[in-house]
């Protein structure tokens, strides 16, 4: 796919590629210049430098010397960066050098049109790339907060921001002390233990009840199906604070408030919609003639369920279970009200830490949680594909 060339590449006129490269250089120069003290100087130097490089690379050296020129630009930027800003400067220089080396040729030889149909106007091409840049920016917005937490959790200081030592890649600036704190602090350990005690119990409850009900709901004739579905999905829709308030009032009445059982029940009911949704989704594509075939061959309903139906809906059940687990594991509002100090879970401890800003141990915990979510996401994704394969759909 990527090798298809829809529009021929050719050398662009001198004025175009020098101007574009100079503009890009000026744009980068704003930031570098500002960081060094003068934006104006940065713009001028950036524009001149990039314009000259573009002229040199495209007009003088040409396509044949591309590899050498790009390495040269990379080395030049890296060296410049290192002289200006030490180790961080070197990294920035390498990035800039790689980018501009590629950019000059991409613009200069019309490569940006290679994968586009030939009849597009320049405006359309510009929009095409602008749109991609916008999307890229949104993806950056989505992912940056999660990425930023990770290096900060290795901070040697008790700060919530990058220290100069960290930016210099000085080993002194990094440490595992927040992780050590997490592993040795009684509060955190108790919270972890509580989370580990509550989430699986809640998951088992919601998966047990939820799977049965989902099977019931996917039968062909269910009276009041819509109303029942609305009730079963409602824990996901009703704002958590309202569920929490109601449960707090009601569970205090019947003596469940502040007990382990109360928190487990509350979390189980919050996880149920996820189980219902994932399991019914697997059952939608379920071929009913399979159970009939099994019955035809003499299997009783129990055998049919365990040997035919169960293996087929298993991926749905497991991903429902993971959803239910993560719901309970991440939940904080309900446990805040329904639980007491004895049921303080990991998110609760984090919430206290954030509100009173006590220690960056939160960041270490956050990193661990992100790693866990990556693991869960991978499992769910694999299960989804497996389920689609089992049901004879193409993965996609």
């Amino acid at each position, binding site marked *: 796919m990527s090798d298809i060339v829809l529009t021929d590449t050719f050398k662009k006129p001198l004025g175009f590629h020098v101007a574009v490269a100079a503009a890009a250089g000026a744009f980068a120069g704003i930031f570098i210049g500002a960081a060094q003290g003068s934006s104006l100087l940065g713009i001028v130097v950036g524009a001149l430098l990039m314009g000259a490089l573009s002229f040199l690379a495209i007009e003088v050296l040409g396509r044949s010397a591309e590899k050498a020129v790009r390495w040269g630009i990379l080395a030049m930027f890296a060296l410049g960066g290192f002289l200006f800003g030490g180790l961080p400067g070197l990294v920035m220089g390498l990035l800039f050098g790689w980018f501009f080396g590629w950019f000059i040729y991409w613009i200069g030889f019309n490569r940006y049109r290679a994968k586009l149909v030939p009849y597009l106007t320049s405006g359309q091409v510009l929009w095409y790339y602008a749109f991609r840049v916008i999307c890229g920016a949104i993806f950056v917005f989505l992912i940056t907060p999660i990425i930023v937490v990770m290096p900060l959790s290795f901070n040697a200081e008790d700060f919530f921001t990058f220290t100069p030592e960290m930016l210099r890649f000085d080993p002194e600036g990094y440490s595992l002390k927040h992780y050590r704190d997490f592993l040795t602090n009684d509060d955190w350990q108790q919270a972890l233990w509580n989370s580990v005690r509550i989430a699986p119990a809640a998951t088992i409850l919601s998966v047990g009840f939820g799977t049965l009900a989902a099977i*019931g709901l996917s039968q062909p004739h269910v009276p009041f199906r819509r109303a029942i579905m609305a*009730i079963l999905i409602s824990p996901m829709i009703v704002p958590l*604070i309202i569920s929490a308030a109601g449960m707090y009032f009601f569970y205090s009445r019947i003596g469940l408030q502040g007990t382990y059982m109360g928190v487990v029940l509350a979390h189980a009911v919050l996880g149920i919609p996820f189980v219902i949704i994932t399991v019914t989704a697997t059952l939608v594509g379920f071929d009913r003639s399979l159970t009939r075939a099994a019955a035809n061959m003499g299997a009783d309903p129990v055998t049919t369920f365990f040997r035919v139906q169960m293996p087929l809906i298993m991926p749905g059940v497991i991903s429902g279970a993971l959803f239910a687990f993560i719901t309970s594991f991440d939940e904080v509002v309900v446990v805040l009200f329904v639980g007491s100090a004895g049921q303080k879970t990991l998110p609760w401890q984090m919430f206290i830490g954030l509100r009173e800003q006590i220690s960056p141990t939160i960041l270490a915990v956050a990193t661990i949680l992100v790693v866990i979510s990556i693991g869960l996401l991978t499992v769910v994704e694999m299960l989804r594909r497996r389920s689609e394969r089992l049901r004879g759909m193409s993965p996609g």
Partner: protein
Amino acid sequence: MTDATHDTTARGKPGPMLAADGTPLKRSLARALRMQKIRALLLIAPLLLFVLVTFIAPIADMLFRSVENDIVANTLPDTVEELASWDGASGETPSEAVYQALYFDLFIAAEAKEHTKLGTRLNYEQTGISSLFRSTGRNLDDLGKDYQKTLKKIDKSWDDGAFWYALMSGEGGEEVLESHRLQYMQLIGQSPRSIISRVWCVIRGIFYKACPTALEDIDLNFTPSAEAAQMLPATVAAYSDFAVFTVLADGDVVAEEDPWEAVYAAFAQDLNTSGTVDKIQSYSGPGQAELLAVTENLADLPAPDFKTTFLDIDKDWGKIENWQTIKIYSPKYTSGYFLNSVDLMKTPEGIDARPENQRIYLKLFKRTLFMSLVITGSCILLGYPVAWILANLPARKANLLMILVLLPFWTSLLVRTSAWKIMLQQQGVINDTLVWLGLVADGNRLVMINNQFGTIVAMTHILLPFMILPMYSVMQTIPPTYLRAAKSLGATNWTAFWRVYFLQTVPGIGAGSILVFILSIGYYITPEIVGGTTGTFISNRIAYHISSSLNWGLAAALGTILLGVVLLLYWAYDRIVGIDNVKLG
């Protein structure tokens, strides 16, 4: 259905078609269908029951609490009854009978320490009542103490618990006692055990441990005498209160305890009622001699003046507003919490707006709606391009980019909120970067947290996947050929997009918007952490009323309004998208 076959022997002959076992096919099919329905319902029943008990019942309880207001009637039952005939708009304080009822109601309430709760409750409506109740509760003993001293002087036996017990005990007064037991149970907020809870207690007794004996089943070891009740009604009533409290609250024996001061005040009240002296003179029973001795010294026992007593304790008892508040909030159910939630209040003249400085909830509701709309809007703006590019890229690349959407979706809410706190704060990553780039002066760092901006940015990030996923699933089904067809028919890029593509994505936008709006309108954690004071939602106020101000009724009313809005949207979502079509990932 599978066992129903055509009855071949019946073919060609008139009459119903028969199944293999000889029953008419129609009935056989109906039975099979019924069996199927029952089986489906049996599979669903456990979960439905579970959700009803652990989730729907709490919600119903919250709805109930938003109108429930029995604390006034439970704490001051007789006062409320007497107050019914008082005209709040008359400008006069209530009659002596009201103050008298208040004295005895408040006496037992103060002993049970329930009067402060009532004070707190009424304080939500009228500032100052809380301290009024508190101070009054401390000083109610004085009135009875004076009578106690005088009586002791007349005869030593009046200071003796056993003597009182003998005087009050007898037969036929069960009704009086039981009505006071019920009043006491209401006072401490307990109702008689229902049949359901009795059954539950039996089950619990078998598997875990037995329930404590129900208050209504405890033997008080005291029966008021009907004769004494006829002669000294107020005294027997006060003594019954005392007896109930002694056994149920203190766990003591009535006969061994000296009666409390209210009994003496009631006794003085009875003595000064016309006809009592005659009844005493014709009385023959325990304590006859002592009673006769008292009638001879009646001059030393003037009738208690309850109104003056209360005004002496606190002159605020003469304030009409306080009495108006008690009267307005005496019914068992009130719309007061709801009125409060929309910045109105009850006055004797009807419903009125709250003073300017107390109007916060409408503002808060408006802010919640406004910010939820802004968040939904920014989610649409940011989500649309991403969903488009995911739906139009080749599958391999799209799957890779999809991870960038799903990872935040799977990451703990608190992790994302803390990440935004770190990024947005004044010494945070964004400000540091801007300062390093020289775009912002070091002394002039941007304030991006603890305000609306912080809440909007963080919540947009958190809810964005909920917008992208439904949009993506709709866009995936739109064939790219439509756009090309539109263009080849002469449409400009914009027309082709707007009139052909965009219209087809509207269901996705609708689904995502309702989902995001529902989720954001009830958000609590993120506004609490990054919202400061100006970026908080109605949920934060609800949480505040539950855990800090303890005004549960108001919290429930605010919650009910919020729930109403959400359910309305939920219904709309169901109509537009269908709940079955919710997809996760």
